[in-house]
């Protein structure tokens, strides 16, 4: 296990370094910079600004300085918000995004597993049709439509929940964003669960269990569910990263002060340090979650061994 972890961490760092370097190069090669303004900044002032953010250094020096700082977990000051650092943005925003993400996870995972199982158990019957219908809507309706729809009808028309705002994380403010954020994954998980459950249910060992006279809930709960979960677990790695780093659209529409917005706005603002910071964050989270998923496999399926030939 220790050997496996070390190997994985080493490869993760390599991946991180490549991604960060690529981002650095790409970012500096797109036109415009952090001080591009409709009202042109006079040359003398531009010089002051560049000096203040060390942008007058050669790119190679900027790159080395940045790497040294990142190694010390210092992501640098943002260009967009005076006096705040990228670390501040993450510290302020990540917990909020994670809270919504956590609720969306419960909703998506709970709902998806149940809907998927129901669909498989009542294959080609009405419950299956209903579950499939819900899944299709979740997958095909874009999140900005879903978010606006929920906001307008549940928030404004029916007045069930506040249509917008964080409000110190009050639960009623979190419901709509969590639903909007979970709509896509719930559909994905339902479909995955349905397919894999159908597959498992047709296996020999389920028939054996049935013929042994085991009650239905034991067959489903102990034998079928566990095996059917594997594809869902695989999906969970990217899913968690997606949820944790937030969804720009959902946060934008519901006015959630999370970090999802910075993925998009940092690029439009050419906020170099935030672009890099978000890349580092997203990349690290993705790597960590994939690792966790790999470890989770071993608990669910004893046939999988981490130290074996199985790759990532």
């Amino acid at each position, binding site marked *: 296990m220790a050997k496996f972890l070390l190997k994985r961490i080493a490869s993760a760092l390599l991946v991180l370094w490549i991604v960060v370097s690529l981002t650095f190069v790409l970012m500096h090669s*797109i*036109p*415009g*910079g952090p*001080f*591009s*303004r*409709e*009202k*042109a*900044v*006079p*040359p*003398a*002032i531009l*010089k*002051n*600004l560049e*000096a*203040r953010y060390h942008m007058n250094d050669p790119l190679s020096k900027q790159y080395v300085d940045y790497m040294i700082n990142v190694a010390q977990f210092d992501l640098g000051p943002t260009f*967009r*918000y*005076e*006096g*705040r650092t990228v670390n501040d943005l993450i510290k*302020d*925003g990540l917990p909020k995004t994670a809270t919504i993400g956590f609720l969306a996870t419960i909703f998506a995972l709970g709902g998806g597993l149940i809907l998927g199982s129901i669909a498989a158990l009542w294959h080609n019957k009405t419950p299956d049709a209903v579950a499939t219908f819900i899944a299709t809507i979740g997958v095909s309706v874009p999140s900005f439509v879903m978010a*606006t729809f929920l*906001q*307008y009808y549940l*928030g*404004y028309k029916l*007045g069930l929940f*506040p*249509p*917008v*705002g*964080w409000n110190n994380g009050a639960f009623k403010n979190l419901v709509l964003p969590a639903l909007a954020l979970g709509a896509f994954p719930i559909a994905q998980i339902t479909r995955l669960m349905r397919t894999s459950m159908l597959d498992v249910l047709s296996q020999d060992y389920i028939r054996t269990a049935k013929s042994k006279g085991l009650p239905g809930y034991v067959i489903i709960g102990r034998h079928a569910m566990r095996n059917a979960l594997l594809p869902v677990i695989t999906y969970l790695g990217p899913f968690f990263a997606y949820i944790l780093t937030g969804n720009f659209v959902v946060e*934008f*529409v*519901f*006015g959630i*002060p999370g970090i999802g*917005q910075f993925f998009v706005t940092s690029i*439009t*603002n*050419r906020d170099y340090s935030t672009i890099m910071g978000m890349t580092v964050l997203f990349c690290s989270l993705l790597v960590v979650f994939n690792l966790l998923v790999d470890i989770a496999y071993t608990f669910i399926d004893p046939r999988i061994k981490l130290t074996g030939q199985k790759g990532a």
Partner: protein
Amino acid sequence: MFKIRKKKSLAVAIAMVLSVSVLLTGCSSNQPAAPAKEMKTSFNAGAEPKTLDPALSTGVPESHIQTALFEGLTRIGEGEKVMPGIAESWTTSADGTVVTFKLRDAKWSNGDAITAEDFKYSWLRALSPALASEYSYQLYYIKGAEAYNSDKGTADAVGIKVVDPKTLEVTLAAPTPYFVALTAFHTLYPVNKKNVDANEKWSLTAETFIANGPFKMKEWKHNDQVIVVKNENYWDAKNVKLSEITFRLIEDNKAALTAFESGELDATENIPTEDIERLKTAKVLKIDPYIGTYYYRFNVTKKPFDDVKVRKALTMAIDRKLIVEKVTKGGQQPAYAFTPPGMVDVEAGKDFRKVGGDFFKEDVAAAKALLAEAGFPEGKNWPADVTILYNTSSNHKLIAEAIQNMWKTNLGIDVKLRNEEWAVYLESQKTLNYNISRAGWIGDYADAMTFMDMFVTGGGNNQTGWSNAEYDKQIKEIANKSGDQKVRVPAMHAAEKALMTDMPILPIYFYTNPWVIKDKVKGTYRSSLGPIDYKLATVE
């Protein structure tokens, strides 16, 4: 020009008595002692402020909040009038280059007295190269300021002199009649020296935020909301009726409007175009003047726009009324000149635009004739690669499509559309990598110079490649060197005429500010420069 304004009223005395009164002993943001009726309101300021440090901020969301939190030497009031702020009066020397401000007895939100030294400190701070303020050029009117900011001069050489704690003497580089009005602009707001020196992150949290306006900061939750409460130390506190304003920071205009309609917000701006019609019918929409012009730039260094006839033909062949009524819908005015209404002319009370008048008429037949003269009869031989560039946005796209269509129908010419992401578009415009490009300009102060100095040869905001000796002379040699409205205003009219004769730009419409506010909120004042002032507002 000799200008004296003296307004030493009883108000000062009363304010002083009030400010020393027992009310203060609690000091913090507790409920006011006499709970008449709590007046609270809310407004969606838009995006998270870049900063609320007045020397460093640049955006509109910031300006709303700062108008509540700060006060400059002057304050803009009803009818765009320059009202005494922290200065109770000022005098301008006969040659217009020395302005002396007399400060009133005013206090910071923490109770310290505001002195002339505070202004000197704040202005030099805004100008210091190390602070690197983007808007520091707003202080370039002061002698030695540009040199200091460009690292070519010293702070000592900047023409700001503290005569005594209540007298500030400012020496200008050239006569600037709008300098006094400019002291109401955020870059020229004062900051508290002791506080700023003690903590460079002072402007980031409510606890360390010291200011001098009608309101003081109670809470700033980043990307969420800023709450300000009445500042009992404000010199005119007796006229401030609101106890609290919540500035929400909702970036999605549609969501902000939904919040307004569900009663969560009392006011919001940046109304989505698709909702304007509906709100107008429901009579909730307010349309305020906004000094800005929406226009297209021509790249005069490239064929076929090096020919003035082509530029004129294209300018005359679009229907602006149709654009403002059917596309933008927000009560915008068709523009037949560059400088928008709302600027003073020679005589106070006269409008620069009204005096200047229109410079051209929409006339398809004449446009066709001009285009034929230029070698494109009925649109023949028209180059295939002429493109309108705009930054990605559905509104700009709709306008560009309308114009594309009008040119096709009226002149028989084809143009393509190209949208670019914001920073890329700015870069293309700057490097003249376009044929026709969408542009917009919002004035910084209510004087035509904020528009007319743009198109001087090589100016950073010219971006058309256009150069005109007459224009340069009127602006640089005459208008910028005189403090006499009788000299400088006619020079600006002449410059605008030169600009509109050569037409390196195609004016489309003058901006407006459509917004919504609940009927119960009264007494807000919205300057045509954009910021909303809640100082005298009340809630029923």
